């Protein structure tokens, strides 16, 4: 297994290099001058020239790329053009926020998606199945921004149960932290819940029609034992791996959800950075996201192997 992991990590290096080239060059293709965006209403040519020099924007693009890459290899992701903060420090501040949000969203997604998927499979083509499918369809088709604003109006403004937006660190005030992330996590989780429900349903249906389930039934086991111990365990395999991969989707969804609920996480960082042409921040954040995605893929593969002993033979 360690050899397998090491091999996979080695393969990730060229992938990351290609991603870094993409991130860097696409960014340069964007119209809009970061120095003008930065200087705002100040147009003193000497200041503009100084800033251009300071952030190496006068160097050829290739040189800028290698300088940036060299910095990253030594742990220096550059400095935010907008606030002068080191990019790594910004990422360190924002990443835990988004991870918390993503984990809570995943909790909602699993807590809603799996039971609904099981129910829909067990009572296939009944009112329960249709209802579960209807809920899933709603979860997939309601846009996050709409659902988010409606929830704010209902839960915060009318009922006054939860704060409308903002964020508190879980280490500073755990109760408030959970309160502030509850709604955004729910909004983010609903879309995924729908996907998980659909996967659970089809996976369960496959297992429920297997021979050994019929045998179990013939032996007179209770329906509950058959569904939970015999079917669900086997049906879980594709769901676990898919959930790991869905983390990537969670990050993408966080971009929008964080905007609505003003959560100072990764998504909000990247949107603001793109609008301000804060090159170093955009590059750093996208690269980190790519690394995260590659790691989650690896985790999915490892989980798959751990859960399915038959696959270990090939390692």
């Amino acid at each position: 297994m360690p050899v397998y992991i090491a091999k996979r990590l080695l393969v990730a290096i060229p992938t990351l290099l290609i991603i870094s080239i993409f991130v860097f060059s696409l960014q340069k293709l964007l119209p809009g001058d970061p120095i003008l965006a930065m200087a705002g209403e100040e147009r003193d040519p000497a200041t503009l020239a100084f800033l251009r020099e300071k952030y190496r924007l006068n160097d050829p693009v290739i040189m800028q790329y290698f300088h940036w890459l060299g910095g990253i290899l030594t742990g220096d992701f550059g400095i935010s053009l907008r606030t002068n903060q080191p990019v790594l420090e910004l990422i360190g501040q924002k990443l835990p926020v988004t991870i918390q949000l993503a984990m809570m969203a995943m909790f909602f997604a699993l807590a809603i998606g799996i039971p609904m998927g099981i129910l829909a499979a067990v009572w296939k083509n009944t009112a329960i199945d249709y209802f579960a499918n209807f809920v899933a369809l709603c979860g997939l088709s309601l846009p996050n921004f709409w659902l988010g604003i409606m929830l704010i109006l209902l839960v915060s403004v009318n009922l006054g149960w939860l704060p409308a937006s903002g964020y508190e660190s879980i280490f500073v005030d755990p109760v408030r932290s959970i309160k502030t992330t509850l709604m955004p996590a729910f909004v983010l989780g609903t879309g995924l819940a729908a996907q998980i429900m659909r996967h659970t349903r089809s996976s369960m249906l496959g297992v429920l029609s297997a021979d050994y389930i019929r045998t179990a039934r013939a032996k007179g086991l209770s329906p509950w034992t058959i569904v939970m111990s015999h079917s669900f365990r086997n049906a879980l395999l594709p769901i676990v791996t898919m959930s790991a991969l869905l983390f990537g989707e969670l990050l993408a969804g966080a971009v929008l959800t964080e905007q609505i609920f003003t959560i100072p996480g990764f998504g909000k960082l990247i949107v603001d950075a793109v609008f301000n042409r804060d090159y170093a921040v955009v590059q750093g954040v996208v690269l980190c996201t790519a690394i995260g995605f590659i790691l989650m893929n690896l985790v999915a593969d490892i989980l798959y192997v751990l859960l399915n002993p038959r696959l270990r033979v090939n390692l």
Partner: protein
Amino acid sequence: MNRLTTLTTLTTALLTVAVIGFPATSAELRIGMQDDADVLDPAQSRTFVGRIVYTAMCDKLVDISQEMKIVPQLATAWNWSADGKTLTMKLREGVKFHDGTPFNAQAVVATIERNMTLPESRRKSELASVENVEASGEYEVKFTLKSPDVTLLAQLSDRAGMIVSPKAAAELGANFGNHPVCAGPFKFVERIQQDRIVLEKFQDYWNKDQVFLDKITYLPIPDTTVRLANLRAGDLDMAERISASDAASVKSDPDLAYADVIGPGYMALYVNIDNGPLADNPFGKDKRLRQAFSLSIDREAISQIVFEGTAMAGNQPFPPSSPWFNKALPVPARDVEKAKALMKEAGHETYEIELQHANNTTQTQMMQVIQSMAAEAGFNVKLKATEFATLLSEQTAGNYVFSRSDWSGRIDPDGNIHQFITCKGGINDVKYCNPEVDKLLNDARASTDDAVRKEKYDAAGLILNDDMPIVYLGHQPYAYAIDKSVSGFAPSPDGMIRLVGVKNED
């Protein structure tokens, strides 16, 4: 199970203590802002919201009154020399910076020099007229100018005049923004980017008896609907720049108060007169077409439709409410027939033109209204929605024919006109150049007599209204929604949130 129950009870008890444990007596004000501020160094920053934070944190040499007059703050009195080239200021005594460093003439000299020489400084053009600044006494400074420039006072009423602790500035250099130390009523506590900026009352503030708040939290919440929802849910005490479409619902809410004031800025359409090859078109060369376009617009209707009546129609760089507004040039009524006649005179039945604008909701809506108004006069306007940073660089580079952008405005009239329209103006993106206008605007800058200045601006305004390199459309308000528990707040025409005297009896 028993152990689990004990654990749960203990955790709940601890959390309850944590929640109720906070003292509820201190007066806090939470302000929802449209954007996050950039670097918090008065020498380097450029955002509007940054200035709002400074208003509570950094006192300036002079301040602006509700009537847009220059009033004392850290400087108690000042006078100009007869030739207008020397400005002497008497400074307030007994003032301290947040780090305890005493405020004196040396500190003023250090700050002004820092603003003029720090390589990262964005204050250089604002202080371009200053030859040098020196301490002529412990509490007196003397600015010597290269040429007469009355606008300097207005510059000193903003970031260029915010005096920072010389000790902190020397220690932190260009990183001053990570821990700003000024001499305002509130001092910096912490900042979490894109989340909050927290200030607390400065106990040694020179005017501390008028400060009734203990803590200020600025929360950037870009979405206006969400910002207002936070206020209604009680998570904010004040929301700045609420959208015009929400004004009516705020007014009808018994828990909220609404306040607005017309800002000093303007909304305008910039015509590419001579900025690169794209200027070579009839619209850039023939002023009759531009006049026709202007006449086709119903400015009052725009204010009513797009801004729900909260904006003010205008046709000059200064709002009609300003003392600098030229009354001889009233806001024109729409006249489609005259517009058509002017177009015919210029040799066009119809005219196709591309107009770029920022891709936000209000601007898009406003441009669509203008598009249909201009269509009646024969203009076939193609709208090009552009993301703001791109619009800015396209406008500077001359990659446009007709472009919509705003100016946040300055207290001194010079700041709304000189740099946009003089031949060598720093933001002259239209590249209009008229020596006669240059002379009038330079003369206005040099005179310390407001009557003389007004005459010059009026004369320049007449020429510009005829040449029309910039089509002024109107003036936006600064609108606030405030919780009824907050008292003592009055909106300032510069859009800043002044907190001295404000109370929150929540």
